[in-house]
């Protein structure tokens, strides 16, 4: 800032090599810059999720009452999470789709490696399980296009349909048609017991 100018001004008058004065001006300017940068951080960081928000980052959901063919929507980190007790027909239908036909061939399952394929089994894999529980599909109910909430049991693929811009998801929550770029995200979750799921 100001010290840059000072420096130049004195370079004209002082014909000697860098003097103590130049060093002093540069040092003062540098320390000022460091201080200004350090002051900035608290003013930025205060907008990040605070401790009380982060404390609610994981929730537990009781799924005892969700019958086959029914869905449950719960609030997690301010977003809807769909928990669907899928029917045999839905599982079969999802299994029948070749990976090559999918616009997004990645599972998008936070419980699996980032490059896992979007097979039906990979879509329903929970953390800490040896085998996927095929009947339970759990995913964040936010359209990967622009963030609307898709409607259940609708669309051309017996899954979800987003009314905002017409994205169709299948019975494994994978994008099949429309502008959405990715399959619906599966968050980290695990089965605490057969009837209790911890999300996040």
């Amino acid at each position, binding site marked *: 800032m100001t010290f840059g100018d*000072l420096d130049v001004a004195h370079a004209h008058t002082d014909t000697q090599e860098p003097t103590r*004065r130049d060093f*002093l*001006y540069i*040092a*003062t300017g540098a*320390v*000022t810059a460091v*201080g200004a940068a*350090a002051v900035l951080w608290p003013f930025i960081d205060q907008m990040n999720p605070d*401790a*009380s928000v982060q*404390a*609610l980052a994981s929730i537990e959901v009781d799924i005892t*009452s969700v019958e086959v063919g029914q869905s449950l929507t719960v609030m997690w980190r301010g977003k809807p999470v769909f928990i669907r007790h899928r029917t045999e027909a839905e599982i079969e239908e999802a299994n029948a789709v070749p990976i090559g036909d999918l616009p997004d061939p990645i599972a998008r399952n936070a419980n699996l490696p980032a490059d896992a394929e979007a097979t039906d089994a990979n879509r329903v894999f929970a953390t800490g399980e040896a085998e996927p529980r095929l009947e339970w599909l759990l995913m964040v109910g936010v359209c990967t296009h622009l963030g609307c909430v898709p409607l259940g049991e609708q669309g051309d693929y017996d899954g979800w349909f987003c009314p905002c811009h017409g994205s169709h998801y299948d019975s494994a929550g994978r994008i099949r048609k429309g502008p959405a770029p990715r399959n619906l995200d599966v968050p980290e979750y695990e089965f605490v017991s057969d009837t209790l799921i911890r999300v996040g």
Partner: protein
Amino acid sequence: MTMRSAKTKAMILTRIAPVALTAAIAAGALAVPAQAAEETHALKSVHFSFDGPFGTFDRGQLQRGYKVYVEVCSSCHSMDLLAFRNLSEEGGPDFTPEQVRVLAADFPREVIDGPDDVGDMFERPGKPSDNFPPPFPNQAAARASNNGALPPDFSVLAKARHAGPEYIYSLLTGYEDAPAHMEMRDGSYYNPYFPGGQISMAPPLSDELVEYTDDSPMTTEQYAKDISAFLMWAAEPKMEERKRIGFQVMVFLVVLGGLLYFTKQKLWRDVEH
């Protein structure tokens, strides 16, 4: 000559007049108030590890203080602003997240949650993200259970009293027999550290009341000290971070101030001012 001396005299007078006036005003302002001095009991002096610009909390003491709170105080005093998760946060009692899970579940009261699927509220064990469940559903209930007195919330109590931790310590260890001339209200106890001297809370601490698992003495003194420290932390959980960052800021300002001083001196060297 005479003229000059008259002038000098006038000057001396005019110089003295304001000084005399000041003295008069100062005397008026300061002499009288002595009578208005209040009768207050000086707090007991007690040393805490968090005193001073570099003081930090004693983890063991905060953990013991939490135990005293849970086993003694929490039956009447709420602590609404504290969450179990705070107990494992940096700069506090330093419980591990696993310990906090257990402490939350073992709290003497369950958390009221709900409504459930049929619209009823239900009780469940505490989780780290829950705030400490209060002993009474509301102030009226708290008063009704305590002879009309309202046990204050503990969340920021240490900051809501002058010299908070010393005050709390003095109060808890300061119960005495009431002086003969004092007429006590029914159900009140004499405590010279409490404003008015009559407190509705019975002496809450006694030796061996809370079981300590470390080597700390299980005395009223120690309990009072530990709960005072715990309440100070509860009121100011970011104190250690504050002092740490504060030190960095002060050092920075001294360095920059020094550099600027020399910069300014150099710059102004050639200016007559």
